[in-house]
């Protein structure tokens, strides 16, 4: 009990306060990779603290079981207990009930989440299979196929084998270096397994919509993953080329207004970040702050548990 409470307190504090701090630190996408690490560490740290607290709670429930059983036996056989014994038993009972309900809820959430990820993966695999048969090979990248479609579209489908799909509309608009930048961006997504991070954080957001860290974390992780892939593409093809490719693809043709209004803002943020590279000193300061926050978040649950169990 005494260890579980501080750990729960820590989890709640991080879950409610970290989003504002991390959101501000990672807003501009300076050191996108460190920003991504900070968000993920905050989530992992919260989950770990909550899980360990839950485990302590369950253990204290198990430890109290003997006393509870003894008291029930005595009551049944007509030997009344003291009032404190009954109070103690009530607490034990409540703790056991909480531990069981929380454990069951966690299991149910994990199961439902696993199923939805599986379904999405199956559909993506089917999508990639059809794309690989329907599409034409794109010379130069044996994972990339070209589909006949007027809209400028480029995306990657993870899986074995991973597939990058480029529409003929995109090919018509992009020059060769720009196409290289687009492919480098998609390859970076595949190489860094961003889809796993995004699936994981989206699942957490769906499971805990009321917890700010998870509810807001998913979109930040997705945004920073895009920026990481941009960095990889910019290193390979140059920032100017990537900016041109982004602009071409984003404004190439007018698409029916069903798309999200946020997409323009997101692209604008990516463009702004690529165009306005901050001074090295400023980058270093951001990197240092993010790194220390990350380390702190990683160590804090251990410290809390260590101090509480003294």
């Amino acid at each position, binding site marked *: 009990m005494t260890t579980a409470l501080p750990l729960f307190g820590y989890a709640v504090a991080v879950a409610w306060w970290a989003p504002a701090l991390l959101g501000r630190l990672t807003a501009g996408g300076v050191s996108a990779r460190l920003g991504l690490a900070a968000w993920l560490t905050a989530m992992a740290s919260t989950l770990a603290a909550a899980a360990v607290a839950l485990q302590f709670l369950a253990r204290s429930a198990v430890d109290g079981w003997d006393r509870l059983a003894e008291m029930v036996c005595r009551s049944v056989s007509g030997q009344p207990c003291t009032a404190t014994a009954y109070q103690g038993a009530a607490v034990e009972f409540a703790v056991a009930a909480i531990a069981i309900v929380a454990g069951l809820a966690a299991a149910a959430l994990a199961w439902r989440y696993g199923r939805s990820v599986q379904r999405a993966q199956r559909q993506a695999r089917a*999508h990639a299979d059809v794309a690989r048969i329907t599409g*034409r090979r794109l010379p130069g990248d044996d994972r990339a196929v070209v589909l006949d479609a007027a809209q400028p579209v480029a995306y990657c489908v993870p899986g074995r084998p991973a597939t990058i799909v480029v529409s003929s509309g995109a090919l018509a608009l992009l020059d060769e270096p720009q196409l290289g930048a687009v492919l480098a961006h998609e390859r970076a997504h595949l190489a860094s397994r961003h*889809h796993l991070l995004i699936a994981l954080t989206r699942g957490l957001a769906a499971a805990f919509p009321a917890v700010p860290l998870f509810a807001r974390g998913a979109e930040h992780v997705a945004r920073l993953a895009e920026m990481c892939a941009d960095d990889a593409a910019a290193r390979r093809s140059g920032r100017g080329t990537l900016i041109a*490719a982004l602009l071409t693809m984003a404004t190439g043709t007018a698409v029916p207004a069903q*798309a999200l209004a946020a997409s323009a803002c997101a692209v604008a943020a990516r463009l702004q970040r690529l165009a306005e590279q901050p001074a090295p000193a400023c980058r270093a300061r951001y990197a240092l702050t993010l790194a220390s926050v990350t380390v702190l978040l990683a160590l804090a649950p251990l410290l809390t548990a260590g101090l509480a169990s003294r």
Partner: protein
Amino acid sequence: MRGFGDLEAVVMHRVWDHDGPVTVRELFDELARERAIAYTTVMTTMDNLHRKGWLARVKEGKAYRYTATASREEYSARLMREALDGGGDTQAVLSHFVDQMDGEESEMLRAVVRRLAERRPR
């Protein structure tokens, strides 16, 4: 040629390039001119494609005549719908280079670019 999956693509594109139905023999003759390939390989591939729903076939004498169940354009259109239609399960797994946007959003983006260009004359 890397794997069996690739051969399926090669065969499908050949079938699409034909106007009418095609037999294994006809396709084998075409392919054999360009690469070392066994008749039975072509036959198995076409049989697989039939099983997966890509090819329909009618028996004519001793052989089957195969046709594509849908055109290349229809498959492409279906894939594009799947890739662009937000909210689907597949959508959650795909990583788009940029999200699609409408005219107004494009205008917003151009405004940002103009602003950036003014701030940093090159």
